[in-house]
């Protein structure tokens, strides 16, 4: 018996073992953000809309977990996520918006048309805060705990299926 003839079978068994092992592993489809566990930087943003206050670091340090939503009136997926943010708000979640490179009249029109789930909206005219917290696009949603530490980063629009996940992350941040 030449043992080399068994080599292909052994290699194949290795592949099956590896594939089988990986298949049983829960697949996390999202790359874990490097920002998780980091505190928010100090910032103080002027109000982006007339009827809402601006946003600052202090707002996130009152002991209550919140959502930080990066959005813009010129962003189409933000329209798609608006109703789901509304549902989060209805469940008692406090959402702080940061409007990226926006104009007050555009922000006002957007909020008129698509609803206003925000407790506060700061204006980030040069994407300064956005870049500092590791967000590369709009929309993105961060779960911030009561001490102002980032607990979760959600990239892309919030969909109906993400609502329970975000509620759970907020619960965990308590």
């Amino acid at each position, binding site marked *: 018996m030449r043992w080399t003839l068994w080599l*292909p079978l052994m290699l*194949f068994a290795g592949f*099956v073992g*590896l*594939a*089988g092992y*990986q*298949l049983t592993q829960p*697949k996390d489809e999202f790359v874990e953000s490097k920002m998780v566990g980091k505190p928010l930087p100090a910032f103080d943003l002027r109000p982006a809309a007339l009827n809402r206050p601006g946003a600052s670091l202090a707002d996130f340090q009152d002991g209550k977990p919140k959502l930080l939503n990066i959005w813009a009136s010129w962003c*189409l997926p933000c329209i798609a996520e608006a109703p789901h943010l509304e549902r989060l708000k209805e469940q008692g979640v406090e959402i702080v918006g940061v409007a990226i490179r926006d104009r007050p009249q555009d922000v006002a029109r957007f909020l008129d048309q698509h609803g206003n789930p925000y407790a506060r909206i700061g204006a980030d005219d040069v994407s300064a805060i956005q870049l500092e917290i590791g967000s590369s696009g709009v929309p993105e949603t961060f779960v911030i705990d009561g001490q102002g530490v980032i607990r979760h980063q959600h990239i892309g629009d919030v969909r109906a299926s993400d609502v329970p996940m975000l509620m759970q992350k907020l619960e965990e941040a308590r």
Partner: protein
Amino acid sequence: MLAELGLAALWLCAALAVLQLVGGALAQRDGSGELAALVRPAAIVQGVLAMFAFLMLLWVFAITDLSVKLVATNSHSMKPLIFKLSGAWGNHEGSMLLWVTVMAMAGGLIALVEKRLPEKTMQATLAAQGFVALGFYAFLILSSNPFERLPLPAVEGQGLNPLLQDIGLAFHPPTLYFGYVGLSVAFSFAVGALLTRQVTPEFARVMRPWVLGAWVFLTLGITAGSYWAYYELGWGGWWFWDPVENASLMPWLAATALLHSASVLAARDALRTWTIMLGVVAFSMSMVGTFLVRSGILTSVHAFAVDPERGSFILMLLTLYIGGALAVFAVRAGSIAEGTRFKAWSREGALVFNNVMLSAILGIVLLGTLYPLLTEAFDVRVSVGPPYFNPVGAIFTIPMLLVMGVGPLLRWRGDSWERLKWPIITISAIIAVVGLLVLVFGDVTVLPLLGLAIAAGLAIAAFLPLRGRNLRRVPIATWGMVIAHFGIAVSLFGMASETAFTQEKLAAVSPGGSEQVGDWNIKLESVDPVAGPNWTALEARLFVSRGSEKPALVTPQARNFWAPPQQTTESALLTRWDGQFYAVLGDQAEDGRWQLRLWWKPFVTLIWYGGLLIALGGVFAIIGRVRSDLRRRAGEEDNEGNSPEWEQA
């Protein structure tokens, strides 16, 4: 009623597959066995019934029978007939049925016409075929029934994704399946030959048309897929070493090696166990590829149809088929007599070299594709890309291409250096001169430089086997080889030229402004909104000209689909004989200027023309082989003596 008939046919097919398996297996043990006589008829009837089941599925899709779940979820009464029909296989269940139908029809065909192999080997082959088919029938009947009824008929179908209503996509999956099924037939032949220890030249000749057919379909699939990615994704690239692309490349590499080693076996009765091994590996690669794509185990930019449950099922089938075949190989291969020996400097020697190199490349691609899977087990995430695949693959590709130029000129058994001195010097001289010219006149990195030089040498070398022969008496299969090898040169030239000479510009242009890329002058006339059936888009009107040529209009778009919401870039192409102009529209800057991404890609189209030539060569080879088979069967004197291979030049 139609759906129930289809399901009944599937059950009967599964029963016949069991009969094939048991009858064929018993025949191995006690010589003939009472069921042995039923193996061939069972395969034929199974082919007919599978075809019937698939016709029933087409029928319920054609009449949009909304009480069938698959129709209700994948079709719509208002769809054009062609997309109603293609909807039948544009989903998981239907595509599985198509796959097994093609496989059953192939099994029926060999049962009907193949008379050259010993009967026992044929029965073992059909038993293996039945075994493979049985797995798919089990999957269809038990967990993916395409004929499942809804408790209440749907009012209207949920339609097919509008993005998939594309004639190219309608025929893309069948192309792949034909390729995979061809390899499954080769696999069955290999297992049959191994079980009965009948690894003969005759076996190689019987298997070869199936390998060639599979190879032609895979070549076309890869070529079309590459062009699709090139114009649709808007990145200007034609190969990304994405897992899905690798999944299609690996069976192709194995099939290429297999069809060359089968030629050695057919002509010279050498490389017996190696050919069997490749027959198993080629089919394994198509199954492994399907598994990687469907299970979602690897993150891919175009992972689709991902479902871990289906993944487990495919892995199970894979383990049974491939593990079984490799176990039989380990037990039996040692007892297969060694084939005829040959000298290193011979046609066989060159083909062995080709096989070793192709296998090495296959190993490299497989390792690169699976490596992230391996490291993830240790919680390290890596991504393997062009910096690995290109240089490491080139180490083996370049020697293989060089030998490809010379191999077809060599005689079987052994040859002399004297006889081939001049052709080899000529080819080397062309490569050296072209290389030097490119080095002097172009600013080019080493791989594209070598690519251009070798392509030029190969283009000439491909035709040298015809030298000094009466062209009208050259066998069709030899023409096939010449065309396919020339296609490799053409494709290689396109790849090297695109890599070396592409000119790219990322520009911000105001309407009315113009820009320059290479010799091309681009004027942006305007950017306007346009609307399609389910999208709106911004469309740029670019007037593009070169020298005194009349400006041509190209219109790249940035599209927004709304159901589902998705942004795509529609690149615009302008094709000339010496390359393509490629434009993509980007965002508008705050000052009103538009981002444009512009490329001039010299001779890029040769990549895909080369691919088509390779496939055409394969078609010629099939025609040549089948014709000489038919002639031999008709008892005619073969006008090439007793060796109908790519003979003695």
